[in-house]
């Protein structure tokens, strides 16, 4: 009876707080370092919309890999997975909490950086910000789904990085998957990237659920 009560009242914020402290903080630090590095590497003042898309698409979008890809990493450690599996709180709830705070942090960091660019007289529209978020989420969800399927940290980072590198050379040949389209003034690709990233995030959680249930051979 007590356990049932405790299960129902288990505070979501407590999961978030513990995960933020122990699993997320280093990734957030790296994300902030990347953002701080952006004005050093790229021009971030007096840019029109297409020029402003360069740092946002080519660098800031990498935050998606840094913040979203590690969502499943803690359980990749076999010992932690065994402990977590014995808990009454569903893994899916923990993953959902991690995904929510990771996406929120991603959006906040991108919006803050966009605001900084706006202060530096760049033409950063809402469309540009949403496009950057979609690109970052796509890269991050690509890492998430790889992590869910492979249970391998390095490969989870590798797949989105290979796709990112491919965009340098293949460019618009990638069609709807072209990450740097806003630099050419094209925005419709971003809708596809966003929809796909939502599907991939949902599917990666589903894969984890299936694997936990042992429904796959």
């Amino acid at each position, binding site marked *: 009876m007590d356990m049932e009560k405790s299960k129902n009242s288990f505070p979501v914020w407590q999961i978030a707080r513990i995960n933020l402290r122990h699993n997320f903080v280093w990734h957030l630090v790296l994300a902030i370092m990347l953002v701080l590095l952006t004005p050093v*590497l790229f*021009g971030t003042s007096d840019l029109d919309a297409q*020029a402003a898309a*360069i740092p946002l698409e080519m660098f800031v979008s990498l935050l998606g890999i840094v913040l979203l890809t590690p969502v499943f990493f803690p359980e*990749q450690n076999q010992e932690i997975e065994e402990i977590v599996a014995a808990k009454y709180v569903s893994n899916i709830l923990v993953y959902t909490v991690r995904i929510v705070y990771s996406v929120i942090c991603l959006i906040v960091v991108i919006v803050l950086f966009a605001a900084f660019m706006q202060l530096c007289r760049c033409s950063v529209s809402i469309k540009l910000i949403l496009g950057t978020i979609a690109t970052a989420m796509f890269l991050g969800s690509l890492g998430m789904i790889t992590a869910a399927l492979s249970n391998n940290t*390095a490969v989870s980072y*590798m797949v989105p*990085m*290979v796709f990112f*590198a491919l965009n340098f050379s293949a460019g618009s040949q990638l069609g709807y998957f072209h990450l740097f389209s806003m630099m050419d003034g094209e925005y419709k690709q971003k809708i596809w990237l966003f929809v796909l990233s939502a599907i991939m995030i949902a599917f990666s959680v589903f894969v984890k659920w299936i694997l936990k249930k042992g429904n796959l051979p």
Partner: protein
Amino acid sequence: MLFLRELKKVVFSISFFVLIAGTIAMVASQGVLDMSGQEKLEMPQPGQDYGTQAKEIPEVIMPAAIQVLYGEFCTNSYTAYPIGFYKNVRLSYDKRQQMAEIISALTGTPADELMQAAGESTQDGNSYTFDDSEIDVQGNGGYTITTQDSMSSDDETGFSIALTDDISYEEFLSYMKKADKLIGGGSFYSDTYLANSFGQTAITYEEAVDSYNLIKDSDHFTGAYARLFCDYMLIVLSVLPVFIAVALCLKDKQTSMNGLIYSRTASSARIILTRYLAIITAVMVPAVILFYISSASIWGMYNGMKLDYLIPLKYCFGWILPSVMVSTAVGMLLTELTNTPAAIAVQGLWWFIDINLGVSSIQGGYPLLRLAPRHNSLQGTRIFLDNFNRLAANRLMFAGFAILLMLAAVVIYEQKRRGRLNGYGKIKKLFSGMANR
């Protein structure tokens, strides 16, 4: 045998599969896996268009550069690539005045008049358009500015300026340096970009014939295609091996195998260096195979000509191998040191900056500290031959650096076996202690 066991682990890993898929996707998407679609290098015929090349001809560079500088000054909007990335620079009022003085010294127009003209054009919202000058941004990240041979800008652009007759090229260069410094470096007026941006001149028939003869006699045709192949291969192979190294080293930790391996009699040097060699072998064998597939695709185009059939081996080991060595070594060292995938962030960032910096020497040039030396052209045999020593020094230096990193990895691994070093344990404890407060 330890080497074969490690090799098997690498070859049957997902990271190796992704590396192969990524490499093939890169070379195939750029049309260098099957080179038959590339241009056939033939003896030039008189009257053809042989393209352009950068040459340091003062009569060409000076009028074109002042024209573009004046245009940028009037709109107070300067294009720069300080470390490879596009930057739009706006100067403060003081710096604009200094720039006006530079232009004044070059043109004889009083600085006040220049400032006034610039103020008016900025207020009018004029934008500078290149009329008889044109910036051509290429797909590979490079760009050229082509200009007509004119001593003054076209009136239609709204900006008209001309150089004074008594300015020498040396003086002009020193002013360009000052202008570049005001902009913050990496502008069109820097040493790196000045000749490339404004010194583009048409290649003459004689020069085209010389270039062809070099490709025929020195490169035996295959060398020209090999450099282009290396250019694209290195974009991926200077970063992807780090993932294999990290995956392999982290696997020991995840499967709790470290304890078992530590207690073996094999020396740390043997364990680490065998693993390193296994990764290098696993990466280089497919690279050689892909290189031969690429090279063989042009053999039929040059029937009866002398070709170098060993070119893929020479370029694979001379050009590609050192970058693979460094990328793998960074992965192994940092993973052994930290027990985390931090190497991916380090190598990834290095790669990202290096690839973008490489745009400034995309046609060759091979700076000493370039992780992935670029040569994105079938031409440029003369550039390759003239700078060969620097390229060789670069590759030897990176190979040596990789060996040093591996020696450090052996020392760290040995310390961990002795229980003296547990990754970054102390730092981790400090931070986790702070987090728990």
